[in-house]
C-alpha cells in the first residue's frame, strides 16, 4: 500500500535526523538551545497547512532546496510520493525527537566515562554505549513516527496534493471517499485500518518506553 511506502520512507529520512537532534538537545548546552527545541516542536503546534506551504516554498522549483535538487540531480519531489514522505517525516519529527531524547537522557553518562577510561574514543563510546542503550527509545520513536506518518493529512495535501496512486495516502483516501456519495463502506474500512494501526503503534511504543526505564516513570503517552 502506498501509505506504508510513504511512511516507511518518511521514517528512513527522519530517524537519523531525529536521533541527531535528540542527542544534541539531551547532551549539549549551547546558546539558542531553547530556540532549537521550540523549532523542533513547531510541527506539533503549527497548522499543518502552514507546514505544507513552507515545504512548497522550500522544495518548489524556485525554492532553495527544490532548486538545487532540480539543477544537480534533475529531481523534483513536488506532487510525488517522495514529497508526501518528506511532509509526513517533518510532521512526525517532534514526536520522534521526544521519544529518543527521553531514552538518551535515561542513559547514565558515567557509563560513557567508564568506556573512555577503557580506551574508547568518543565516537566509539557513542556507537557501543549510547546508541545500543537508547535503542528501545529509537524503536519507540520509529513506531510512533510511523503511525503519525500514516495519519498525515494537512501538510501532505497542501504540499503534494491528492493524486491517486502517487500521493493519495490513507488519510487522503478517507477524505476522498467521504466526498463520494455512497462510499461509506470504503470509509469504514479505511478508518478501521487506521485506528488499528495507530492503537497498535501507541501500545507498542509505550511498552518499549517502559522497558527503557526500570522505574516506569518515563512515558511516551
Amino acid at each position, binding site marked *: 500500500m502506498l501509505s506504508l511506502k510513504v511512511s516507511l520512507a518518511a521514517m528512513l529520512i527522519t530517524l537519523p535526523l531525529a536521533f541527531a537532534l535528540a542527542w544534541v538537545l539531551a547532551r549539549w548546552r549551547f546558546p539558542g538551545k531553547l530556540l532549537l527545541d521550540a523549532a523542533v516542536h513547531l510541527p506539533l503546534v503549527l497548522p499543518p497547512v502552514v507546514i505544507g506551504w513552507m515545504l512548497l516554498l522550500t522544495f518548489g522549483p524556485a525554492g532553495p532546496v527544490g532548486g538545487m535538487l532540480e539543477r544537480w540531480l534533475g529531481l523534483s519531489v513536488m506532487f510525488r510520493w517522495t514529497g508526501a514522505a518528506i511532509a509526513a517525516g517533518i510532521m512526525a519529527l517532534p514526536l520522534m525527537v521526544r521519544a529518543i531524547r527521553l531514552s538518551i537522557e535515561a542513559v547514565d553518562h*558515567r557509563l560513557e566515562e567508564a*568506556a*573512555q*577510561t*577503557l*580506551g574508547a*574514543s568518543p565516537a566509539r563510546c557513542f556507537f557501543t554505549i549510547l546508541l545500543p542503550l537508547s535503542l528501545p527509545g529509537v524503536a519507540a520513536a520509529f513506531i510512533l513516527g510511523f503511525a503519525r506518518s500514516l495519519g498525515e493529512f494537512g501538510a501532505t495535501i497542501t504540499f503534494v496534493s491528492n493524486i491517486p496512486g502517487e500521493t493519495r495516502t490513507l488519510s487522503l483516501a478517507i477524505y476522498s471517499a467521504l466526498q463520494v456519495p455512497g462510499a461509506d463502506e470504503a470509509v469504514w474500512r479505511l478508518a478501521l485500518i487506521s485506528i488499528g494501526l495507530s492503537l497498535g503503534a501507541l501500545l507498542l511504543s509505550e511498552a518499549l518506553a517502559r522497558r527503557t526505564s526500570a522505574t516506569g516513570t518515563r512515558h511516551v503517552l
Partner: protein
Amino acid sequence: MSFDVDVRKALGDHVVTARFVASDGITLLWGPSGVGKTSVLNMIAGLMRPDQGHVSIDGQMLFDDSAAINLLPHRRRIGYVFQDGRLFPHLRVRANLLYGHRLAAPENRWMSLQAVIDFLGIEHLLGRWPGTLSGGEVQRVAIGRALLSGARALLMDEPLASIDPARREGIMDVILRIRDELVLPIVYVTHNPAEADRLATRKIELMPSSR
C-alpha cells in the same frame, strides 16, 4: 612506574588541590568528605580538566596547562574502578571484560582474559548479565575489565563502599595481590580508616581550601 600529580581546580566556592609523587604500591588519598578526592582521580583519568598544573605517569605528560597538553581519557591507559562498578548493562560479563581489551594495542595487553579470570576467580560469572551480580561480583568484574584494558596504573574510588562487609575482605585481598603480584601502582580513595591502614603504602592528605 611513578605518578607525578600537581593539580588545582576551582569547584564552586572551594578549590581542590593535590600535589604528590607516587611510585609503586597503593597511594591513598585521604581527607575530609568534600575535599575533592574523587575530583583528583577524575583529573588523573582525564575526565575532569584541572585549571592549572600537570599530571604525568612514568615520564609521559598526560596534562600540562603550560604546554597545552591534555590527553583524552582513552589515550591515557589508566584503569579506573568506580565506586558503583559501572559495568555496561547491555553486555554480559565476558563482553564487559573484553571491552577495553579489544581496544588496547596488542603490545599493551599484558594480561590475558584467562589470566584475569583465574586471578579474580570469576569463571562462573562470564555468561551473566551485570544486573544479576552482587556488589562484590560487580567489583571483581570491574577490576578485571580495567586490568584487561592494558592499564599501566589503577585508580580506585571507594571500591568497597557498596559491598556488604562480609565480602569486603575478599576484594581487599584482590587489591593487595594487584599491588604485590602484578606490581601495578594504585591511587586509592576511601573514607574507611581500617581499610586505609590495611592497604596504604603511603597516605596523601588533601587539605580543604577556599578560593
